[in-house]
């Protein structure tokens, strides 16, 4: 079918209309899938959060209004879980940003083997989350773990310690595993952003007598801000909904000390038989994620307004 100029016979649809029709044809398969596996389920979850949903799919659901939400916020476990999730999010994202920026800087200053370093960063990032978690669980093992092995050979401990059973340490051990996995993500993004920065400004500042720290703080860091924000938001959204790595390293233990908000949702929905509470919790996680998404979209669509 050849393209027809818009001024030819009126009965035929205009080029623009033809185009629009084709566009819908191209989009419909994806749109149907996305509506089916994302939009419909999120609405359904929202509705479920107002019902008491007993286990077993043929049980009768009863409407409880805001009951699930009220029960959720009255439960001390909920607030403790929010606290633990924030602990994980703030510390792991913070460490990933600081270490990632430092490593990006290091690569950017071209030491010997910088290409190898950049290449190596891909490995931890590519290792699947569950393999990464299992690896750290074994590293922390009380029977054969590498951590105990090193500390013993350095003479720092006399006998093996069951690290993952220590209540105050468990979450931080999960954080170390997450930092190993995701710090390369931040480092790679920031390194590629650094590579695109113009050097004239910093050179001019150097001529004017600004020292390295001043140049970094006043020139380089502000120019890196868009890339840092992208890394920060992507990592924050991900970290807030952490589940896999805690599930595999500690199974939520010891005594709930590593149960995060997604983990609590999983437990309510699939272990405690409280699917209504599970729906309410998961809707809360969505709200947070969508708020972050909104920020993300604003940031990316109008970068000039976010200054």
């Amino acid at each position, binding site marked *: 079918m050849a393209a027809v100029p818009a001024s030819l016979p009126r009965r035929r649809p205009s080029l623009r209309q033809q185009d*629009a029709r084709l566009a819908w044809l191209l989009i419909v398969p994806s749109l149907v899938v996305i509506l089916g596996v994302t939009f419909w389920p999120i609405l359904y979850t929202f509705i479920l959060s107002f019902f008491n949903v007993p286990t077993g799919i043929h049980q009768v659901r009863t409407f409880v209004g805001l009951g699930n939400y009220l029960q959720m916020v009255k439960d001390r476990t909920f607030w403790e879980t929010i606290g633990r999730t924030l602990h994980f999010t703030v510390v792991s994202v913070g460490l990933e940003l600081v270490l990632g920026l430092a490593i990006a800087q290091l690569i950017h200053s071209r030491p010997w083997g910088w290409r190898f370093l950049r290449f190596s960063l891909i490995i*931890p990032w590519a290792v699947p989350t569950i393999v990464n978690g299992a690896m750290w669980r074994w590293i922390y093992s009380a029977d054969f773990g590498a951590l105990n092995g090193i500390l013993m050979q350095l003479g720092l401990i006399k006998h*093996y310690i069951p690290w993952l059973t220590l209540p105050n340490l468990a979450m931080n051990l999960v954080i170390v595993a997450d930092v190993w996995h995701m710090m390369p993500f931040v480092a790679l993004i920031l390194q590629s952003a650094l590579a695109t920065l113009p050097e004239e400004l910093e050179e001019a500042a150097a001529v004017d007598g600004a020292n390295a720290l001043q140049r970094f703080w006043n020139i380089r860091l502000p120019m890196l801000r868009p890339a840092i924000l992208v890394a920060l938001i992507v990592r924050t959204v991900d970290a807030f909904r952490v589940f896999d790595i805690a599930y595999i390293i500690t199974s939520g233990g010891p005594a709930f000390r590593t149960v995060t908000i997604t983990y609590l949702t999983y437990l309510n929905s699939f272990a405690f038989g409280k699917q209504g509470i599970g729906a309410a919790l998961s809707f809360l996680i969505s709200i947070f994620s969508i708020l972050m998404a909104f920020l993300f979209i604003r940031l990316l669509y109008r970068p000039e307004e976010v200054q």
Partner: protein
Amino acid sequence: MRPRRLLHKVWLSLLTLPVLGFIFFPILWLVNASLSTQVELFAIPPHWIPQHPTFQNYLDIFFPSLAASSVPRTFAIALLNSIKIATAVTLICITIGSLAAYALVRIPFRFNRAIQIGILGTRMIPEVSLILPLFIVASSLQLINKPAVLIIAYMSFALPYAIWMMAAFFQTVPIELEDAARIDGCSRVGILRRIVMPIAVPGLISTAMFTFLLAWDEFFYALIFTSTLAAKTAPVAIAEFVGRYVVNITGMMAGGVLAALPPVILGLIFQRYIVSGMTAGAVKG
């Protein structure tokens, strides 16, 4: 001046050592442990390099019918399930996603912007918020423990991601090329088939790689939807064995190394595209 520069370079290069140590120590330890026997693994102090290295753990997974324990047999099947499911997800996403991405990038129509933003928004919805309805429907359709349920569920994160990543690649196809073809009488479909797709091939390949990695890495849906060997993926197999006490730990380590190999190899091959893939959607639409 020169000696000072050299000293600076030496100092910077020394700084890379702890970073490389942090990156490589865990992974090398895992590989070494997977090459040792169960007895040697428990040696105190540890043998950092196995004195009697053995490939038995790997051979058991490659030839599961000869293996003594159930761990390698489960892994062999779970790895195959992972390959099947991740491949199917990738093929579907690339096929329908590339069409949608082209339309969103190059054809102006009503709701174009709204759909773009909607798709970007779905990337942010966590799996846990979709799981209950999907689980209810999958149970009533008898789809639990079937690979199909995972392929469908994985669309929820893989398809929006693939669309955004491909949209970014289509934007790099010069619009002048398309205009010239239209003036010469080429239809939209012809342009898509003969001009845009061939130019975007590297983009399609790297999108395929990222989609495959996402599907390979997925754990939550797989944990909920599969419990038998019919559809269990590698991450679920690892999680299941890790939770038990007296099992073949070195065998599991070999399984873990094998599950990590495909994504690591793909990542290293496609390293040029990794940063653009990580920030997919971060290109102005």
